[in-house]
């Protein structure tokens, strides 16, 4: 019997990127409202597949990250009464999520320009939410029935990599490893995201680049609906190759050849000692040989 599982979904909600995604010049245009419908169907499927399943949804808006919905929160009062056409649990979820998104979009209306998407903030919030962070205190023995095994995070990304967020993303990955959280990534629009590929690879999740974007729901149900425990039996698609390059610390460029200060390598090593990593992630990486290391002088 399959156990209940927790799913945290991070939505990349950059209006500009979604605008680009919806343009008919794309081979398979996908607009935000069509995306949202398919996503809601997927979320409902997750809730329906097991009564005890829990769900949390985070939104990465331009310059801001918000928790859109959590199944552990009390139901808001203003949810419209159930109608004959919908299952009330689904309706609560769908309504809460869409309303929160609309509120945030309203708040955006005053901005003159779009700041970069707060994906890292959303990821960090997802890691800190109770269903996941409870694993930190008792990673092995889960006595609390509210804490479900095998938590996972699904990132639905449309924005390109932000090289400035390399270090925070890496740190999030390490925390996720420590918490034994699986990070799945679905690249809905835009070029392949190097950092998210690494995130999925390092946490044992799968990274899917959407080829037929009009069949989003098909991808979601096939690849991401099954909890990690089930995926050992149920083969799910994964990425073939992963880009392992790092971003340099000085200009935040993604580099092929990195340089590492031989002195502070040791100290940084101690800093990150708790998490199991390999070489590139332990150290300050420069794109050019520098005479004085900025980390240790």
């Amino acid at each position, binding site marked *: 019997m399959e156990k209940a599982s927790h799913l945290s979904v991070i939505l990349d*909600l950059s209006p500009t990127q979604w*605008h680009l995604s919806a343009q008919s010049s794309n081979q398979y245009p996908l607009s935000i409202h069509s995306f*949202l419908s398919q996503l809601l169907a997927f979320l409902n499927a997750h809730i329906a597949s097991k009564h005890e399943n829990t769900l949390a949804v985070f939104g990465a808006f331009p310059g801001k990250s918000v928790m859109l919905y959590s199944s552990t929160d009390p139901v808001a009062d203003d949810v419209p009464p159930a109608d004959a056409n919908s299952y009330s649990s689904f309706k609560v979820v*769908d309504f809460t999520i869409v309303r929160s998104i609309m509120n945030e*979009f309203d708040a955006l209306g005053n901005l003159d320009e*779009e700041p970069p998407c707060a994906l890292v903030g959303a990821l960090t919030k997802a890691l800190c939410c109770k269903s996941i962070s409870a694993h930190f205190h008792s990673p092995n023995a889960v006595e609390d029935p509210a804490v479900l095994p095998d938590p996972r995070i699904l990132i639905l990304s449309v924005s390109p990599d932000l090289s400035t967020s390399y270090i925070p993303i890496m740190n999030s990955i390490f925390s996720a490893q420590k918490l034994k959280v699986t990070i799945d990534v679905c690249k809905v629009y835009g070029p392949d995201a190097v950092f998210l590929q690494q995130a999925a690879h390092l946490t044992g999740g799968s990274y899917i680049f959407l080829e037929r974007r009009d069949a989003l729901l098909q991808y979601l149900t096939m690849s991401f609906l099954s909890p990690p425990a089930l995926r050992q039996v149920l083969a799910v698609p994964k990425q073939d190759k992963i880009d392992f390059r790092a971003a340099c610390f*000085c*200009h935040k460029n993604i580099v092929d*050849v990195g340089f590492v200060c031989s002195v502070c390598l040791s100290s940084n090593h101690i800093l990150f000692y708790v998490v199991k990593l390999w070489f590139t992630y332990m150290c300050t990486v420069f794109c050019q040989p520098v005479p004085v290391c900025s980390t240790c002088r």
Partner: protein
Amino acid sequence: MPTNVCTAKASYKKAPGTLELTDTHLQWSQDGKKVPSVRVPYHEATSLFCSKEGAAQVRLKLGLVNDDNGHNFTFTAPQAVAYSERETFKRELTNIISRNRSTADSNANPAAAPPPIVAALSASPSKAPTPRPAVAVASASRASTSRAPSVSSDRRTPILPGTDAASDFRLRKKVLMGNPELASLHRELVMSGQITEAEFWEGREHLLLAESATESQRKGRPGQLVDPRPQTVEGGEIKIVITPQLVHDIFEEFPVVAKAYNDNVPNKLSEADFWKRYFQSKLFNAHRASIRSSAAQHVVKEDPIFDKYLEKDDDELEPRRARDEVADLFINLGATLEDHGETGNQRDITMQPGRQRGALPLIRKFNEHSERLLNSALGDKPPAKRRRVGGGDGGNDAYGQLDLDDLHDPETSVGIILEMQDRQRYFEGQMASAAAVEDARKKAFDVRPIFKEARDSLVSWEYNLNQLKLERKPGDAALLSMTQNVASRLDVKSKKNEMPPDLFIQLTTCQTAANEFLRQFWSAIYPPSTETQTIAPATPAQKATKAAKMAGYLGKTHEKVDALVRTAQVEGVDSIRVQVAMKPILDAVDHALAFYHTRSAKPTKGIN
């Protein structure tokens, strides 16, 4: 023409010939040939072994400086003649070897005991077969082999690579022997003349340094107690094999035996008699390293000579040899005796060593042995340095001893702060790049309508959700592509690697060679690392030539891979698999070549 000291008919590696000892060399020439095929200079001889007297063949083995296997000669003359011939050779060679030793020892390591010629002597209680010193028994020397390695003298100081060509070569050879993969790479590249020896080792100096460091390590004294084990032969006889090493050890361990030896040999006793009597004496039994000896006590005879040297059993309350050091203040129970006058505690009389009195001498013997071992490990440093804490001098040290690590609060550790210099630059860099992206984006779109559009498209979400309908075609396409993804992975998992071994080896060689070229290339491009010791940093011009040369080699990698692909086709292997296997290295090569071409296009802007 060197004069002959002695000659004899002897065979070497089963070929008959003549063994000669000239005044500079020991040489052997095969019958019918004029030039000697074995020529050993005197100074290379280090050890000598002879076959047992009475053995079917009369053999002589000579160990060399860098070659423990040495040379084996068999004297082919009739036995009686062969013996006398061998004795002659042995006498001469023994002298030569001892001369070599003394010079070597005075050169390098006066502390190391001279490794004596392994010799054996049979001492049996009933019949003693004319024992002589330095009669070597090559076979029955188990006792000696266990201790012989201890005397490995280290006359080599650590050699830095490049200082001495011969030793450098030897080191390289050793490194290669210990690392078969490196050796095959070396064979592949250096022996075929593609890169030079020096280039190959550049950047690998650490291997040589590590090897020379390992070599120069000295083995300490073995901790074994000197305890000659008698071997029982038929008829209740006991046989003890004596080697000079054993004699040396006995003298060192029991000075009283050395004293007895000096007093009695050779005036009162011959050397053989001395040892024979010693092993039957009470003195020997007192020196045995276990209580087992009591079982053998009935065979011990009275011996007027050795009994003189008998010491009283060391089983009194206080050891016979008092420790000369000042006891540690915190261990010395007597240190605070004066503080407890009439009112104080009673004297602790339970703390007496050895519950069983008979065990006391043994315990003390062990202690003395251990002490001697430790002292030998410390070498001849002044005794003041030996004590970690100088006990007697002043209160500071006493307080230092009181200040235990465990008493400190572990919570006060400050952790390690990641201090970045230029933090400003770090954040500015972030902002600058973000600003650049923003600018580009602002130019491209007006964001306000986009925000509004996003907001508005969500209003009718409920209707949209109700109308959600997946088209069959894209769904099927997605399903198909994902199934293919899973299937291909399953395929890889279930399929075995059926590359023919020959081809596989070729692939590996090509790969390692290209890797080596890449390594050379990049090391020529980038500044040398400061960590490793380089002999002489290459000049920019040298580096440029090297980079050019390596780039030339790298350019040929594609041809090589193509050739391999063709070979694969001939062998009936899927050539695509070969291509896939070689793809990463080709990518790396292409990358290096592209880098090289852009760099050489604008030579003014070098990294150096």
